[in-house]
């Protein structure tokens, strides 16, 4: 139920009211309207985590590599992953 899916913001409304700011997000091509009230700094091109129609977090591109760098730092990987 706490499922949240990453999607790319392709459009952001020009609403003056932060609470009614909405955007269109692409879920691998399928477009859906998302409420942006909780990610006031989100902009077109950002990947956001979407839960029940609300963007709840902007995915941090650099931190997204942590799952790979952790192994490399641990000295396990002879060749870097990906």
């Amino acid at each position, binding site marked *: *139920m*706490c*499922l*949240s*899916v*990453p999607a*790319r913001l392709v459009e952001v409304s020009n609403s003056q009211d*932060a*609470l009614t700011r909405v955007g269109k997000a692409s879920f*691998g*091509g399928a477009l859906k309207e998302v*409420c942006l*009230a*909780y*990610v*006031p700094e989100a902009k077109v091109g950002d*990947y956001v*985590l979407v*839960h*029940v*129609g*609300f963007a*709840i*977090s902007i*995915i*941090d*591109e650099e*931190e*997204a590599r*942590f*799952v*790979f760098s*952790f*192994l490399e730092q*641990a000295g*396990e*990987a002879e060749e870097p*992953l*990906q």
Partner: protein
Amino acid sequence: MSLKYIDEYRDAELARRYADRIASLVTRPWKIMEACGGQTHSIVRCGIDQMLPAGVELIHGPGCPVCVTPMSTIDAAIRLASRPDVILCSFGDMLRVPGSSSDLMTVKAECGDVRICYSPLDALKVAAANPSRQVVFFAVGFETTAPANAMAAFLAKQRGLANFSMLVSQVRVPPALEAILSSETHRIDGFLAPGHVCTIMGFSEYEPLAERYRVPIVVTGFEPGDILQGLAMCIEELEAGRSRVLNQYTRAVQRQGNLAAQAMMGQVFEIAPKVWRGLGTIAHSGLRFAAPYRELDAEQRFDLGAESPEEKSGCISGLILQGLKKPVDCPEFGRGCRPERPLGATMVSSEGACAAYYRYRRPLSAAATEARHE
């Protein structure tokens, strides 16, 4: 089609390397509880527990809001949905949860007006479009969902939607983990904390728990790579005799959480004691409407009748939700209790441990026989 921020964490080679890393770390048996039902589903579906060295056991936690919503609340939703003046809006996964004598799916089939909503904001649209009917949104969820439900209440009040109300069953994770840790029968060495709950709430609430009970807690995501990394981080802490709160899910979670979402939650809801199905009442573990929003409380607006009895006989979901039993320990599992006719909520939700085991862990012969009959 490739999906960014999903596919790369499902890589089999990545999983194998983490499994090797974990195997090289482990010197003794450890029991680690994944708190969230989404993590349980991923673990059972991908066989992550079967990739771990002998002695590392995953205990499935109570983190499925569908599973822990009390039977009395399900019965209240059923009573509401049975009223001709009411449209009950709900997330789809609540429809087959058994109440004491029926479920919402049955009420819907018998002409109750039950509508499945993807977002709580959809329920507001239903209310605006049906001014002569009462529209009740069944607001179930953990902290991940609370800001969305809070927004629905906020907008309903702002827009003066007098025919809108909410049946609230909102739960909070940290008090439930504390309830498990403070029980004498618990056997948990470390936790994977629920990543999306922490996206909203951050993880400072877990720090006193880690310190007081000397258990490492690792905020963890939901893909196989995330879960294996969370386990590796947790086992490193355990092997080193440390018990810190660490963050595996750094791409989505910051220590302070989502402040805008917390502000809306704080405006609409307040912390309250809460009954969890299978676990009983846990102090501070729920949310209810704060005073300015109580007019939106469906339990106050409608006469919902008497309390319901506790769990049906034969169901051990309470013990499963506490991590004391596994689904396969239940004599009814796959026999008297199946997803199409569940005895308890852990068999209903795809995030319930029993449903995940039923789907992915039955003996191959049973699954094959069933497939031939489908």
